[in-house]
């Protein structure tokens, strides 16, 4: 049977190499889209934990604080607990690194401070000659050889970093390949002695976590309970699995969205397999009809078709896997940017490919090919021999079925939409269900639209209308291609509408919330957050600058509310400007500052939605003194991330979580003082400190640049889906050119010139594109509504105001038309060369 499958495949390749290649390409691009996103998702999670694992070697348990840090005095208490074999204190901090070359962007160094003599189970060790150097040499740091090579560092070289507003000089003390220990460790990982990190970069006497190694004879669960009792409230004990789950939860919405988009690409690829298998079956209908007439049952026919599809799937998957790896490598940078911006995660610097991901991609490719083949195979195997022998009977049944399919698709959409608005309301899955139903309705309507568009034409010449009518009479393959194009166009239009709406919303939000004239932060703020401190000296200098009327301070760190990781930020609620600092969507803006001063909090929309919070509710938050309850005074729009956060008064924050330096400052200038001139003046006055000083306008601009970067991967997925869909147009026209060879020959015999046949085929490509765009526009609007009002609201917790970027959408439609026309050139050329002599006894 295998031999037969191979022979059949060879025959298929010989009969139409381009058709076959396009079907393989469809599977390959679909597999590549899925695999690349899964690789990036997987590696994004890996980057989260990789570096700490490289340093402490995989402890069974970690102790972390309820606030931003924890005091190092608890270390002896941890070590004293029975069952603890070793405890490794860690201080992890991101510091800013000047660019290696003048034209490069500023980088970061992920510094982990540890007790280099602690009996950690890490695979790396300092050479005996180096022992002692980490303590003796000020600023001693071990870096990876690859980073040293990139930066041009040698052992003993000094370089400058900045932590918050502090500038610190470090010295390359050792070169250690941390990625050998933990493959997902950042290449930009640097290890220092704990005391030096605390003194030079962080806060003396403070730790970020203590990694605990458990004795072989101790039970982790039991030890966790005992340690929690010993340490009391204000400390959390987490296992690596809990940390992974937390990181997974943090990224869940982001990963789900990308996965859903990549599956659309695979779906469009499945359409191509469908079209290709259908074309092959139609070509062989007579043979199949004869077989059935001579007594062959349906099953062997089905088996042979599925075998061929499997081989197609194997080829597509084999090509798709390397393509997916390449796509993942090419897009690691933009995904890293999103992870850094939205989730403060480490950059993905090395792509690891796990065997199960390859298996997943192979499974997706094979299943996609089988699914694409199964429907036409079942359809043909169900036909009676008479219908198989008379080709037009198959077309007739396809024409009859088209209306029923459209009704089923739209019925499904109405049903799912009603469910999403009623019984599934608020469930994150409901948005995706509606989105899937929109795509199903769009794809299932393609045959009906082709017929409706062509049915009533009475063309006067071989024109677009003639092409439309010809397509209407043979809807089978064209409908699949139009379905694929409509699906990809829906996705393109929906994301354009969603991103356009989101951008408008964010611009309005920035306008509402960025009220200060000048913003001061530090180069390491974007990654380090609470550890990026503005020194008291800087704060004082800022307040003394001429023209500065008010200095608002801000602190931020990550804490927990009932196991939910949230951002906790504080600002000065006593300032008159406090009332306009956030855009409240619930609560009284005039009373909010007063409530904050009394200990209330404002919660961000994502948190309010996910934790079902309303004004007047109480929000429990873990503090160093244990869980405390904070009344909710308002809900504010927040598009800076989807994990949720709270805002409180700075003094309340200091009381609850301990005092610390602010991380950012916002300056309100006196009337008539020029912001840009003040920025220049501040930069000159504070040049000795590591600071990022921007005017309001510049900050808004940069926020929007970050926004645009966030959707770079989405654009890639849109592009891949469109590429597959346009291949579908070429494939469908090639199928038409071949299946209609006799009809074309008739046209030529009756006096149609080659140019006319060429134009007619281009017209058919254009008709398919127009039908795809019409359906795609309808689907795009439906999908955009689902994304804006269901997916973004229920999954990310963001309210987005709908905007219609009409010009962009029109531009995209024009580009699709142009691309579809180009996609039709080759088949049109092939068709125009069809000689009149091709007229055979085959039915037209």
């Amino acid at each position: 049977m295998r031999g037969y499958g191979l022979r059949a495949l060879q025959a298929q390749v010989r009969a139409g190499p381009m058709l076959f290649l396009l079907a393989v390409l469809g599977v390959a691009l679909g597999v590549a889209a899925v695999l690349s996103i899964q690789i990036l998702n997987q590696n994004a999670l890996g980057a989260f934990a990789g570096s700490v694992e490289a340093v402490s070697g995989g402890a069974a348990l970690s102790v972390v604080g309820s606030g931003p840090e924890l005091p190092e005095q608890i270390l002896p208490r941890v070590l004293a607990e029975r069952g603890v074999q070793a405890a490794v204190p860690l201080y992890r901090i991101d510091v800013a690194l000047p660019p290696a070359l003048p034209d490069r962007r500023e980088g970061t160094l992920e510094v982990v401070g540890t007790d280099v003599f602690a009996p950690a189970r890490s695979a790396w060790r300092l050479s005996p000659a180096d022992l002692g150097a980490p303590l003796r040499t000020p600023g001693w740091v071990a870096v990876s050889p690859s980073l040293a090579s990139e930066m041009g560092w040698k052992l003993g070289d000094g370089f400058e970093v900045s932590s918050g507003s502090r500038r610190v000089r470090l010295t390359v003390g050792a070169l250690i390949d941390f990625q050998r220990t933990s493959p997902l460790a950042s290449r930009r990982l640097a290890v220092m002695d704990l005391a030096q990190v605390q003194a030079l970069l962080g806060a003396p006497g403070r730790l970020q976590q203590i990694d605990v190694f458990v004795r072989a004879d101790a039970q982790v669960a039991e030890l966790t309970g005992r340690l929690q009792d010993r340490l009391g409230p204000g400390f959390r004990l987490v296992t690596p699995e809990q940390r992974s789950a937390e990181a997974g939860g943090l990224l869940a919405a982001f990963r789900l969205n990308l996965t859903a988009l990549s599956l659309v690409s695979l779906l469009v690829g499945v359409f191509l397999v469908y079209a290709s298998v259908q074309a092959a079956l139609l070509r062989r209908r007579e043979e199949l009809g004869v077989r059935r007439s001579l007594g062959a049952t349906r099953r062997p026919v089905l088996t042979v078709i599925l075998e061929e599809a499997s081989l197609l799937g194997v080829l597509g998957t084999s090509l798709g896997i390397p393509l997916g790896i390449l796509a993942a490598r090419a897009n690691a940078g933009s995904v890293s940017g999103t992870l850094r911006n939205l989730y403060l995660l480490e950059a993905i610097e090395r792509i690891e490919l796990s065997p199960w991901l390859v298996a997943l991609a192979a499974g997706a490719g094979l299943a996609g090919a089988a699914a694409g083949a199964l429907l036409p195979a079942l359809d043909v195997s169900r036909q009676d021999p008479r219908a198989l022998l008379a080709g037009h009977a198959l077309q007739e049944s396809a024409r009859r079925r088209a209306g029923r399919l459209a009704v089923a698709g739209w019925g499904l959409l109405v049903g799912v939409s009603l469910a999403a608005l009623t019984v599934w309301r608020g469930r994150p899955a409901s948005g995706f269900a509606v989105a899937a139903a929109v795509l199903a309705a769009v794809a299932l309507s393609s045959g009906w639209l082709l017929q409706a568009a062509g049915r009533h034409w009475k063309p006067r010449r071989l024109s677009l209308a003639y092409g439309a009518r010809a397509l209407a009479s043979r809807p089978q393959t064209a409908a699949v291609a139009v379905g694929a194009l409509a699906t990809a166009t829906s996705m393109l239009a929906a994301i354009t509408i969603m991103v356009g709406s989101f951008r408008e919303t964010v611009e309005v939000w920035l306008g509402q919330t960025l009220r200060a004239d000048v913003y001061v932060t530090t180069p390491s703020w974007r990654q380090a957050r609470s550890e990026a401190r503005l020194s008291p000296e800087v704060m004082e200098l800022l307040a003394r600058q001429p023209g500065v009327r008010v200095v608002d301070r801000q602190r931020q760190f990550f804490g927990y509310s009932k196991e939910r990781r949230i951002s906790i930020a504080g600002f000065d609620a006593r300032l008159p400007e406090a009332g306009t600092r956030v855009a409240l969507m619930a609560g009284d803006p005039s009373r909010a500052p007063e409530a904050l001063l009394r200990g209330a909090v404002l919660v961000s929309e994502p948190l309010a939605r996910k934790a079902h919070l309303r004004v007047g509710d109480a929000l429990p938050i873990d503090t160093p003194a244990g869980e405390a309850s904070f009344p909710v005074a308002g809900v504010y729009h927040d598009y800076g991330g989807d994990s949720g956060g709270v805002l409180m008064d700075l003094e309340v924050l200091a009381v609850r979580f301990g005092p610390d330096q602010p991380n950012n400052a916002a300056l309100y200038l006196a009337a008539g003082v020029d912001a840009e001139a003040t920025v220049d003046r501040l930069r000159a006055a504070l040049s000795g400190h590591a600071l990022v000083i921007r005017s309001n306008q510049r900050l808004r601009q940069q926020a929007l640049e970050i926004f645009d970067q966030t959707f770079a991967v989405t654009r890639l997925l849109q592009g891949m889906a469109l590429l597959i869909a346009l291949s579908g147009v070429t494939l469908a026209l090639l199928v038409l050119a071949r299946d209609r060879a006799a009809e074309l020959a008739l046209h030529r015999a009756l006096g149609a010139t080659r140019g006319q046949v060429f134009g007619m085929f281009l017209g058919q490509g254009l008709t398919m594109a127009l039908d795809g765009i019409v359906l795609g526009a309808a689907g795009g609007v439906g999908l955009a509504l689902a994304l804006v009002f269901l997916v973004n609201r229920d999954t990310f917790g963001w309210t987005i105001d709908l905007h219609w970027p009409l010009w962009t959408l029109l531009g995209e439609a024009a580009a699709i038309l142009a691309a579809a026309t180009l996609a039709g050139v080759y088949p049109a050329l092939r068709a125009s060369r069809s000689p009149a002599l091709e007229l055979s006894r085959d039915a037209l």
Partner: protein
Amino acid sequence: MQASPKPLSDPREVAREADPRHSFPSMDSILTFRNVSKAYPTAGSAPREVLRDVSAEVGGGRAVAVVGRSGSGKSTLLHLAAGIDQPSAGEVELLGRSLGGLSDRERTLARRESVGLVFQFFHLLPQLPVIENVLLPAVIAGDRRALAEQRALALLERVELGGRADDLAEKLSGGEMQRVAICRALLRRPRLLLADEPTGNLDEQSGERVMELLLRLARDEGSALVYVTHSRELAARADETWRLHDGRLELA
């Protein structure tokens, strides 16, 4: 060569021309074969010669039957006459103009303007209505639809299919399909009508009727008719018969 489309004149003219009482046979030469040979390349051996040194002429309004055994070159002769294929040697002249020196486009336009084709297997577009099938040559030529439609309906009336103009072609019987194909071939008043075994796929009674119609309409329209047939009876109805034997033409 850019042949100007033959205008379909006003409705009165359409009616007059569709009327079987009007016929304008002409004795001018419509189709001429001069020492025409045709050989097809074969894999690994000498080319297969299908036609050898054929010379013949068809005058306006004349009907010629081409007979011969299967594979004797009958269909090839028709293909050469229509400019669908080109001779290996010799010359084919259509309306006094050699097809040999013309480009593909020029030959196509010459065929469009002067030749009507009827095939053994009808070659209708099954998913289109009858009227649209008849109108196909006018659509290809870009003729004015209203006039073309009048002419098509008039022709369908003459073949007794006026009531089925809106039916799908796939719903017709074989004989009906061939009658529609004849209407299609005559729509643009070709000077030369070529029919390749027009009754070959029909039963005897339907074949008789179709041949009758074809001869009558060709005569009425003033078109020269060259048809291929295996039937002695049908061949006997022609003004002259060409017999092809081993690629050579014998005038009967």
